[in-house]
């Protein structure tokens, strides 16, 4: 580790944090516009052309708002909690590659890669950082000295622990498929086929679990306005609230970037464009563009789900996490591993058994869910 490499990390990290902060601002704008269109409204269109200055206006308002601290709050933790929440959201994407090797360029005798840190356990790093984020939320809820905030924080912990398992296991099937935990290897393994196609049920589990992980609707129990008065951030205002908000939206961006990387081919093109001009092997500059497009579409998916689905009841949320998602993702890991083993030992065509069998496993899970609900219906009637 030389001074030059530290400097490189610093500069890349700074640039990336700036991009994330700008991305947060414009994600709020994007969400408001998309939600408005779904609700047959127009959305913010006053500040600047097409309302594009709205995030800046919001930021200025939040900066100048009065900072309040509840009288009997834990002052230090109340102050630290937003920072603890925001930091993991900012650093989690450090291992994600944004461009292919062909896009790397030499500078001052060093090769600058399109990745902040190329570590060989990238996906483990993501898993560990993802679970740290909950500390900030719990501390925010606890230090506010408000029972609603406390409840929101506790719900958030319980929810995150429950869905972390399914999330981790869907990571495992990706690791098994790619035969590596290094992010670049995972992306390159999707050169001929996205993991979305090879492991569709794993992708669905990943998307559902990440919705729960970032406390997005329909799993937004920790900040349920109607029952908890905004949950863990009900005592926060001004810039501290902005930090919590920023953490939430940066987590959304990060989760979408990770989903794009491990299931949708990261910076790689669509697999059917492989040997054309649109391939990143021939036009490396398209790599970051592909990441952006994929993230944009995935973010729209999140907004779309928020606009459609009502909030799920808390006991159902827990039951769904533990009784459906966890066994299903365990089964998927087993099925994926078996399929790869068979493909290596017997016939490569067994690779295609993985999506078929995992879809069957998903169907069995749905059947189980359906029968449980049926039984409950009968019991009530």
């Amino acid at each position: 580790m030389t001074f030059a490499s530290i400097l490189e990390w610093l500069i890349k990290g700074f640039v990336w944090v700036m991009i994330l902060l700008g991305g947060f601002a414009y994600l709020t704008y994007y969400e408001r516009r998309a939600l408005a269109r779904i609700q047959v409204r127009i959305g913010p269109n006053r500040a600047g052309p097409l309302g594009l200055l709205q995030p800046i206006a919001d930021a200025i308002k939040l900066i100048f708002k009065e900072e309040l601290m509840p009288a009997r709050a834990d002052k230090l933790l109340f102050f630290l909690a937003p920072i603890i929440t925001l930091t993991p959201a900012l650093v989690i994407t450090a291992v994600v590659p944004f461009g292919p090797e062909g896009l790397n360029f030499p500078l001052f005798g060093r090769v600058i890669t399109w990745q902040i840190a190329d570590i060989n356990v990238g996906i483990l790093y993501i898993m560990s950082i993802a679970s740290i984020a909950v500390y900030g939320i719990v501390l925010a809820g606890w230090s506010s000295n408000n029972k609603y905030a406390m409840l929101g924080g506790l719900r958030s912990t319980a929810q995150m622990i429950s869905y972390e398992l399914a999330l981790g296991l869907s990571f495992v099937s990706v690791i098994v498929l790619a035969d590596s935990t290094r992010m670049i290897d995972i992306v390159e393994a999707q050169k001929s086929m996205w993991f979305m196609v090879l492991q569709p049920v794993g992708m669905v589990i990943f998307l559902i679990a990440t919705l729960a992980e970032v406390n997005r609707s329909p799993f937004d129990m920790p900040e349920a306005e109607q029952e908890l008065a905004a949950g863990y951030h009900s005592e926060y205002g001004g810039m501290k609230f902005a930090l919590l908000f920023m953490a939430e939206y940066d987590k959304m961006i990060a989760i979408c970037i990770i989903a794009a990387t491990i299931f949708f081919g990261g910076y790689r093109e669509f697999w059917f464009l492989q040997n054309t001009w649109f391939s990143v092997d021939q036009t490396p500059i398209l790599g970051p563009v592909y990441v952006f497009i994929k993230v944009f579409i995935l973010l729209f998916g999140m907004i779309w789900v928020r606009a459609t689905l009502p909030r799920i009841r808390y006991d159902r949320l827990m039951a769904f996490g533990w009784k459906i998602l966890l066994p299903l993702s365990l089964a998927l890991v087993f099925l994926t591993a078996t399929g790869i083993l068979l493909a290596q030992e017997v016939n490569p065509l067994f690779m295609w058994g993985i999506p078929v069998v995992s879809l069957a496993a998903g169907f069995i899970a749905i059947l189980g869910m359906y029968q449980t609900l049926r039984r409950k219906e009968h019991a009530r009637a």
Partner: protein
Amino acid sequence: MPVLEPIIELGRGLFTTLRSMFEKPVTVQYPEERKPVKPRFRGRHVLKRYENGLEKCIGCALCAAACPADAIFVESSENSDEKRFSPGERYASTYEINMLRCIYCGFCEDACPTEAIVLGDQYELSFTDRKQAIYPKDMLLEAVAASQLLTPQKTEPGKFTRSVPEMKDPQD
């Protein structure tokens, strides 16, 4: 297959919200684009005039009596043929409505014997000061087409002796 029904329903829900994205927004871009109010809308009050420019209001203060919010204040004075404001003996020399107290119920309209006070179609009433909320008579009176129609007018004696005119049943 009934088992897949929940999934299909989920998909239908998502499709419904997606389809609504392509509908025309119902938003009215307010300051630039204004929807006309309904015919019986109760907005800011207007004091009406006759065609000859005389005020309909005769200062009877029935509106003030009918007002449940006590928002109207009327003071009346005597008309003369040299300085005639309204037909009959008396006219409202002071007529004030406090727009912060008014609840726009329209009882004043009903109470008025000469149909002088009417709740109009103007709804943009904002003030920066409580004093500005009190609308005096000159703000409430209907504008006139020509300056000779302004009150007070000089009229020939014995013509305008009747305060309350002959009226038809209201149409709307």
